[in-house]
């Protein structure tokens, strides 16, 4: 047992500081902008005092951030003992945290731009109990070799538990045994492009633009703009349409770039019962996920991709923060041909049935899929027909559209029980197929409204653990007998 004590790389001090400074940029920017850039270092100016105060506070905070970064780097130590990863840090208040290796859910490696300059990685250690999307332990920056040591220690600790007979053998310094790591998925440039162009990232970008614009609302001279605009309108609707198109195009382009950068070189490998996902162009990310922690698998096909035979495969896993903050929805295969994905999944999880035959929702349940929509549809149609008389009538088109969508949803709703596996399929727009194992389901719920009771249909929900809360699959309006079969199946 090597009780060697490890430290972070000095660069971590810089990274911590920069991170703290980064979170200060926005408030400071808002203050500066809302002040209308009325700053001056001229003593006689009336803004002198404000300026000094602002920059004083800001500078003070910056110095504090720097000191904090250095202190964290100097005091942070970690070591391995008794099959645990132990961490200690803090100057006045010493904090210690011990994590048993078996409890570690995933080990994520992250390489930001800073890290790559120095050949470092950020390591995030997650357990099921990680609170609020924060990793249990974050090693801000360590050398790649040191990161490998952690994994080695973990593996050794596990071996030690499994085969305590031969202690000497495991204690031998097994020098990074080169395991052949089979790649099960690699995203080609072509797929990457398809993913980038069909992803819904454009909404994110647009809302980002809106957020930025609203930040600057104080300095934008709306009235002048409005006058300009009214002139503009006179020029013609065509020009406006063109501008809107241009904005959309730019937003779309930006979202494509973002997706490309994030998912560049997306690779999934499997190494002793663990999935290892690597991706990223500027910032390299590596996520490790033990297979036996996976709670459910979801295949999502949005209409466009369903048409072209593509799908997204998402794994639900308990705890931890995954790739973005709070939710632990890891896209296992962001974009894959449905056919290939079923094959790969069958290799990964041989116990599951990947070609289910669904029991569909009965025909008499069809009205339930669109009837409820009329509650909000009718007032909207009424209002728009009345107030926008000639063109408002176009809203009547919504009725056949909702009915068609409802029929489509009805066609998709189905379930299958096969031994210890429960599969649900349904759609809002995208077709969602969830594969769950019985032992992973936290609870099953059937609901029946008064109208459903008359038609003898029931909706079924099943919840699995995912991230901090749960993930619920929901098949609406199945035959009552079928719903009861599911309940009976779920009983012991």
């Amino acid at each position, binding site marked *: 047992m090597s009780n060697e004590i490890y430290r972070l790389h000095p660069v971590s001090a810089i990274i911590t500081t920069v991170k703290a400074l980064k979170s200060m940029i926005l408030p400071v920017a808002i203050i500066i902008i809302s002040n209308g850039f009325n700053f001056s270092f001229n003593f006689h100016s009336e803004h002198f005092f404000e300026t000094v105060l602002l920059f004083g506070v800001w500078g003070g905070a910056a110095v504090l951030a720097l000191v904090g970064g250095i202190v964290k780097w100097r005091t942070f130590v970690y070591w391995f003992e008794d099959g645990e990863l132990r961490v200690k840090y803090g100057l006045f208040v010493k904090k210690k945290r011990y994590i048993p290796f078996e409890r570690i859910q995933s080990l994520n490696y992250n390489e930001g731009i800073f890290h790559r300059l120095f050949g470092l990685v950020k390591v995030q250690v997650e357990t099921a109990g990680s609170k609020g999307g924060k990793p249990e332990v974050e090693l801000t920056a360590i050398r790649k070799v040191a990161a490998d040591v952690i994994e080695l220690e973990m593996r050794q600790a596990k071996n030690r538990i499994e085969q305590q007979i031969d202690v000497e053998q495991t204690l031998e310094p097994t020098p990074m045994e080169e395991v052949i790591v089979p790649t099960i998925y690699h995203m080609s440039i072509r797929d990457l492009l398809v993913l980038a162009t069909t992803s819904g990232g454009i909404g994110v970008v647009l809302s980002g633009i809106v957020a930025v614009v609203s930040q600057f609302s104080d300095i934008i001279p709306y009235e002048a703009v409005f006058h300009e605009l009214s002139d503009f309108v006179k020029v013609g609707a065509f020009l406006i349409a063109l501008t809107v198109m241009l904005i959309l195009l730019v937003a779309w382009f930006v979202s494509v770039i973002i997706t490309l950068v994030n998912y560049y070189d997306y690779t999934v490998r499997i190494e002793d019962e663990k999935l290892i996902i690597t991706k990223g162009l500027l910032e390299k990310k590596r996520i490790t996920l033990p297979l036996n922690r996976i709670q459910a698998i979801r295949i999502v096909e949005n209409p466009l991709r369903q048409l072209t035979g593509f799908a997204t495969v998402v794994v639900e896993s308990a705890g931890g923060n995954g790739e973005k903050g709070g939710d632990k929805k890891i896209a296992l295969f962001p974009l894959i041909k449905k056919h290939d994905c079923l094959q790969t999944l069958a290799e990964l999880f041989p116990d599951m049935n990947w070609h289910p035959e669904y029991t569909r929702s009965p025909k008499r349940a069809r009205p339930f899929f669109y009837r409820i929509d009329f509650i909000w549809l009718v007032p909207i149609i009424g209002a728009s027909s009345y107030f926008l008389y000639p063109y408002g009538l176009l809203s009547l088109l919504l009725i056949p559209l909702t009915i068609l969508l409802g029929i489509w949803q009805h066609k998709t709703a189905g379930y299958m029980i096969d031994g210890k596996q429960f599969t649900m399929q349904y759609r809002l727009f995208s077709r969602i197929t969830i594969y769950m194992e019985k032992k992973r389901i936290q609870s099953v719920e059937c609901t*029946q409204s008064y109208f459903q009771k008359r038609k003898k249909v029931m909706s079924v929900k099943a919840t699995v653990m995912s991230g901090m809360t*749960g993930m619920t699959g929901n098949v609406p309006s199945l035959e009552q007998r079928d719903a009861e079969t599911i309940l009976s199946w779920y009983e012991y």
Partner: protein
Amino acid sequence: MRAEPIHQISRKGLTVWRLYGVIQTVLLVIVAAFVCYGTYYFEWPPFIYSIAGVVVLLSAILSVYLFPKIRWERWRYEVREHEIEVQHGLFVVKRTLIPMVRVQHVDTTQGPILKRYNLGNISISTAATVHTIPALIMDEADGLRARISELARVAEDDV
């Protein structure tokens, strides 16, 4: 047709829910009184009086009489060796099945009104969900908690 869960919640629970309804209605009456006063004082249109009256009346009928009654009739639960089954719902009837091995912990809670009637709520938490059975006789709730925690022993799998 699957049999319904056998146990109903305590009859006193119905009384407690009626009491909640009364409290809600009293709060509404206070608000309505303010609105009526405002209407009188600022000479707002007189139909506001009737709206306030109807709202209070509706609340009284629904939250004191009708809803507690339906809710109480629908509420059923059953604790079996391997699972807990719960059925409830006002407009939509929900039936939930929670396997014992999934149960993480059980809580009982009791507010001042429930205490007055010697009742308690029992909440069953799994890793992902929480299910509450309301208004059980306190002894029964304690017994149930003990029984569930006894039945819900070792979970084989993580989470």
